[in-house]
């Protein structure tokens, strides 16, 4: 069986041929097996977001190969790759259409990767299903189906985005610091929700976080990035036994710097 995600030697350089030349991905390879729930850490500018953007097709890599479920998607445009991917972004504004209602947003997500024709945008049978999954969030959204998403709080929007990313089961779930913009309490709630959904659907997941504790607590595998490369890849028992201090020591050793950002996390 081919791995769910197979990345081989991808490279991405921004601002090639200028003084600002910037190698964001440096001959990076990564394999994800079915059910891998990987947390991704690394300093600011390490290339974490660029990696997720390369997988989702938001950027096209300069060289290397990306295969999802054995299919080569290296040059496939973003909207076509969406069939494989559920995504949640750092900015809660990005994942949902603010002028459309909760119901309309969920209905849009139901057809991710499918043809959109002249049938009704929402079918009647969706209604009860939407209510039940919203009720599971425990945010009081089940009675706000006709509210414009733009009127919801950041945490509510992020929770809805998570539903939208998984309402059609994705092959890979990509989460880019999806709790970073939320207050600690809401962030914890959205993380719990993430765990629950990943477990229920046995999703293969890549989750970027800048919080070391979260990186250790969640998932079954942890990778650390630095200067566009993966410098650490731990799983199973080894990962479970990690401590924040140990992780910090490893970070300093791998990158040769002390990061304020990481220290405070």
């Amino acid at each position, binding site marked *: 069986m081919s791995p769910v995600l197979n990345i081989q030697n991808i490279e991405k350089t921004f601002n090639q041929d200028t003084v600002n030349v910037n190698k964001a991905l440096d001959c990076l390879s990564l394999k994800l097996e079915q059910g891998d729930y990987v947390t991704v850490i690394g300093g*600011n*500018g390490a290339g974490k977001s660029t990696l997720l953007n390369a997988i*989702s097709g*938001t950027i096209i890599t300069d060289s290397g190969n990306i295969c999802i479920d054995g299919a080569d998607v290296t040059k496939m*445009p*973003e*909207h*076509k790759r*969406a*069939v494989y*991917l559920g*995504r949640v*972004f*750092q*900015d*809660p*504004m*990005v*994942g*949902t*259409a*603010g*002028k*459309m209602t909760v119901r*309309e947003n969920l*209905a*849009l*997500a139901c*057809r*991710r*990767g*499918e043809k*959109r*024709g*002249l*049938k*009704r*945008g*929402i079918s009647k049978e969706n209604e009860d299903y939407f209510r039940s999954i919203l009720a599971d969030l425990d945010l009081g959204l089940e009675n706000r189906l006709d509210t*414009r998403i*733009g009127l919801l709080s*950041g945490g509510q929007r992020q929770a809805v985005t998570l539903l*939208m990313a998984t309402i059609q089961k994705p092959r890979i779930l990509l989460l880019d610091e999806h709790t970073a*913009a939320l207050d600690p309490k809401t962030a914890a709630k959205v993380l719990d929700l993430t765990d629950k959904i990943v477990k229920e659907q046995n999703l293969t997941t890549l989750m970027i976080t800048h919080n070391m504790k979260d990186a250790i607590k969640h998932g079954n595998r942890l990778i650390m990035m630095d200067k566009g490369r993966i410098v650490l890849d731990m799983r199973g028992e080894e990962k479970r036994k990690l401590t924040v201090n140990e992780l910090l020591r490893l970070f300093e050793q791998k990158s040769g710097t002390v990061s*304020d*950002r990481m*220290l*405070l*996390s």
Partner: protein
Amino acid sequence: MNYYSIILGAVSLGLLWAVMTMGVFITYRILDYADLTVEGSLVTGAAIAAKLITDGTDPFVALAAAFVGGCAAGCVTGLLNTAMKIPGLLAGILSMIALYSVNIRIMGKANITLLKSRTVYDVLENIGISNDIAVLIFAVVLNAALVGILYWFFTTQLGYAIRAAGDNRKMARAQGINTDIMKILALAVSNGLVALSGGLIAQYQKYSDVSMGQGAIVIGLASVIIGEVLFYRKGFLGKLIAVVSGAVVYRLIIAAVIELGMQPMDLKLFTAITVALALYTPNIKLKLPKPVFKTLKRREGVLNEPRAEYSKH
């Protein structure tokens, strides 16, 4: 002239312009920018209709052709914007300028009179209704039909996709929507409506002129904004009805200020000032999505800047 006929005329004309306003609504409110193609495609519709009618084509067929011509113009703007990556405003200006030549080519001259031709309104007149009322009835029925069709269209899966693409490009692409195609489609439908409106207006005023589109975008925006302020409704159907009502109210206002003695040549200045003030009014800004995460967005703009809360250390 008595007030009855002034009001009747203004309402009828308003309803004919309302068709264009629905087109402007699609670009301005769904795609979220003002498409200047309108100034050209309105005339394209008038030119196609007038040319075909004087050549002996059925006036209804001529209207359909006007719609198709407008769709084509919208597609061109869409391709300039998506395939050639020219900013939307500039793409619209380019189309508008190009259409000036195209419109003269279509007519073979700068204007065509329809005084001796049979129009869609004459068809109703034949059943024994007076011309004024015939126009009104025709315009009401047409607007009702168009509102119905647009409401239906924009609540289909495809319509949702177009709205999502206009609302949030990143989200739309993440949901597997080809945002470029959606943009072209919206511009085509929008300019199709604008051209249809041009064809209707030409038949109403019995002439088509290459400069009749001048200021059309501002008239459209004024109508959309008046509609939103006076008849603001939740839901897509309510918004479409508000837009049509706005176009009618705009014509009533114009008729009123002319009655009050304003010179016709000052009308465009008056409209532009009205729109500028309306856009400035905070009241209207409230109805736009609030910039809740403004700070976050600003921060994200500078990728490498350490975030405040981490750099304290």
